[in-house]
């Protein structure tokens, strides 16, 4: 789908991309990087809107330097920022955008109705966009990127500004874009945790360099952190300590908690999950000690963790 070869982009004062070479196949691919890592610059180059300083890139087998127009006909783009005029309805706006992509008027109307329904906008699509919630606006932005039935969509920070429920719905929708609609997705985010659940493949860039590119399962296996909280009993007045010692005895790597100061922080154990067996081990250990398991949950990772090959336990920010 996308291939780059020592792609570089230099501005007078900064190097946005530095000899980036990667190969992205069909499916949902997450592009992770901190702010300023070069994600938006990369998308601009891939859309053929900004020439690369060096190297080459292909999208759908078309060279971005010469076939920009053809690429943009087959690709959708959802920007990070607001891009919707408030005084028109979602239907009118998306129809107009469909025509801008080259769809004949009748097809543009039909595709708009279909697409808005698929992203979950119903009666409200006839009302002016100005009155929409953030979640609805994000759906309209997604709809305009999908309306011409592209082969590939670039979604720039689609979960920005959404509450947890809206975030989950958007991620589910992104997943469906590939599974139900058959459209490949390149989605950017600065949160690795949310991409883990949605993407087949994750690419991490930092300072314009490729840091890591692997399938999502690799990430989850090596990166998952478990948070465990247990009750205290008469036999074990400090249940947390008892579990910590028991787990350490069984060779589980424990991490120092960084949530000091938060209520109950001392009662939360953070440990590295190497696979399914860790979950079983925790369950068995807690059961043997006769303690109650209050919680056992996966902690979301911050992108900074990936930047270190082996995160030092005391530097882990678990959130």
């Amino acid at each position, binding site marked *: 789908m996308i291939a780059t070869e020592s792609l570089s982009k230099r501005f007078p004062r900064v190097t946005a991309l530095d000899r980036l070479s990667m190969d992205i196949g069909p499916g949902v691919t997450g592009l992770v990087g901190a702010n300023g890592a070069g994600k938006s610059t990369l998308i601009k180059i891939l859309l053929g809107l900004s020439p690369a300083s060096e190297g080459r890139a292909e999208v759908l087998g078309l060279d971005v330097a010469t076939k920009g127009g053809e690429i943009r006909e087959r690709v959708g783009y959802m920007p990070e920022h607001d*891009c919707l005029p408030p005084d028109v309805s979602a239907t009118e706006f998306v129809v107009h955008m469909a025509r801008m992509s080259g769809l004949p008027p009748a097809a543009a109307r039909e595709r708009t109705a279909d697409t808005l329904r698929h992203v979950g906008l119903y009666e409200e699509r006839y009302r002016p966009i100005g009155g929409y919630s953030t979640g609805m606006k994000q759906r309209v932005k997604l709809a305009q990127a999908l309306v011409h039935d592209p082969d590939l969509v670039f979604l720039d920070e689609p979960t920005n500004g959404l509450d947890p429920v809206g975030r989950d719905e958007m991620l589910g929708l992104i997943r469906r874009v590939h599974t139900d609609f058959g459209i490949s997705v390149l989605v950017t985010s600065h949160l690795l945790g949310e991409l883990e659940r949605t993407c087949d493949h994750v690419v991490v860039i930092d300072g314009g360099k490729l840091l890591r590119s692997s399938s999502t399962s690799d990430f989850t296996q090596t990166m998952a952190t478990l948070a465990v909280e247990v009750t205290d009993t008469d036999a074990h007045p400090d249940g947390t300590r008892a579990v910590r010692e028991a787990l350490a005895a069984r060779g589980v790597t424990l991490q120092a908690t960084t949530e000091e100061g938060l209520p109950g922080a001392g009662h939360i154990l953070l440990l590295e999950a190497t696979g399914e067996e860790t979950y079983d081990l925790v369950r068995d250990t807690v059961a043997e000690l006769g303690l109650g398991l209050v919680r056992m949950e996966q902690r979301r990772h911050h992108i900074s963790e990936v930047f270190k090959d082996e995160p030092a336990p005391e530097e882990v920010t678990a959130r």
Partner: protein
Amino acid sequence: MSTPNSTAQTQIHNIGYRKYDGQRLGRAYARRSLYSQSLRGAYGLGRSAKSKVTPMILFAVMCVPAAIIVAVAVATNATKLPIEYTRYAIVTQAIIGLYLAAQAPQSVSRDLRFKTVPLYFSRPIERVDYVVAKFAAMATALFILTGAPVIVLYVGSLLAKMDFTTQTKGFAQGMVSVLLLSLLFAGIGLVMAALTPRRGFGVAAVIAVLTISFGAVSTVQAIADAQGSTGAVEWLGLFSPITLIDGVQTAFLGAGSSFPGAHGPGAGLGLVYLLVVLALIAGSYGALMRRYRKAGL
């Protein structure tokens, strides 16, 4: 209340996602679509009822005097119209200015303000298509506004059985004049509007450029005329859009000059006027192209 219909209405039809295998008409079609959408938008068509009010009222205000003139001419069996075809737009310049001030920001500032521009450029069209479509749409909208009363006058003159050849010649000259005016004003208005994403500033900037330049030029012209320096009157007309048009049509389109003392430019200086008008139109286009180099994505 208990019609069997109620269940049928609440049924959910889950049609799965359908791929689109139809035509993709590409860049030229997208440019045409943007042009027609912008042109319709300039008269509030396809937009809210509120946004139709201003352009429609101004259009009516523009045409009503022409209709009255025609009615009077027909009723009195006049042998010539009381106003030249070329003069009409000069007399109604305030209306044209208001229309431009209202619609040019509507056309370009909105896209900049709500950052819709990147969505256009992520599609097959290029910067040149966007600028050409917006420019052409604004010029066409102005041409409709300024051309309609000229057509009314022409039709009226034929109804009043005035001399066909004279009227047709005058009409053609009038149409060329308003075409030039439309291109010039569209360029100036769009450049002003594209400089700011705030609509209010755009409106104010367009009105300021048109009225201040005209006010200054005609005041200084009047002073120069009073002091008897007719050469200065001729040259001063170069500094405001409407006097530029006036100068060009005085020199080439057989129009009577509306400069103080009717000291319009002759053919030689008229050429300078024409060149300045063309340079301004080309310059506006260039300025817009420059403006959108930065605005993409």
